[in-house]
């Protein structure tokens, strides 16, 4: 695939899009782990939901 004189513009566009998407996925994944860990820590300290169900139970 020959992109000619515009290779740098095209490659930068696709790389930037890939980077932003990867950062979004990583941010959401890390946030999920963080919230689950905080909920687990709170439950281990003896705090329970009114329903009695585990706060980390999302099934």
């Amino acid at each position, binding site marked *: *695939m*020959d*992109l*000619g*004189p*515009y*290779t740098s*513009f*095209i490659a*930068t*566009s*696709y790389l*930037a*899009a890939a980077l*932003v*998407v990867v*950062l*979004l*996925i990583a*941010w*959401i994944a890390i*946030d*999920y782990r963080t*919230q*689950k860990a*905080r*909920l687990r820590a*709170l*439950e281990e*300290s*003896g*705090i*329970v*939901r*009114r*329903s009695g*169900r585990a*706060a980390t139970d*999302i*099934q």
Partner: protein
Amino acid sequence: MSLIDLANPTRFLALTARLLPWLALVTVVLLAAGLYLSALAPDDYQQGATVKIMFIHVPNAWLSMFVWGVMSLASLGTLVWRHPLADVAAKAAAPIGASFTFLALLTGSLWGRPMWGTYWEWDARLTSVLILFLMYLGLMALWRAVEDPTRAARAAAVLTLVGAINLPIIKFSVDWWNTLHQPASVMRMGGPALDKSFLIPLLVMAIGFSFLFVTLHVAAMRNEILRRRVRSLQMMQARAYTGSAPASGATGPIVGAA
């Protein structure tokens, strides 16, 4: 499960656990197909190979407006129906919409330099999209500035609905004013002006990015619900420590939000 059942965050979380792997799979397949078709697309007789930038730029530009539209509907849900998931949906969508808008601006700029001879021009389309990006950032700042999520949700909902005025301005800016940005070539009266060799990769990429948004949005909503559970339990813990908790006994479990 009826639609009204989804108003229950616990049921929504159960649904996301089942849906997310499938949404992610469809997203990956569509984006892979879109990238493959984009690579095979021929050069444009005027733009040359830079037409490939359009396969990323256009979907992100569409989604930048679509996400604000989703947030506007969610804001109505917050203000009118006080739907328990409405402000969760609006808050979770903002960073994703900001990212798509940033990519639309960046890729448009990278296309503009070789085609227009400039990275940036203060024309109506580019400026209104920049304003949209700044509004996304302002909304995210507002969510962080107000500690109580319910109060933040109402303020953010009003700002979102006011900001929705910008959507028709963006869409019709190329018709209302004399802009450097070209008029619509896909969503227009009389059908798309693009050849199929460009239209098909563009549409596949657009559907792929749309699925990416849905996947990320559902996952971010799940995180936001968990964050609110954390806040709720922390408040119960704080009340217990300050002695204002319901009589639950010093050694018994502290009961938090459902």
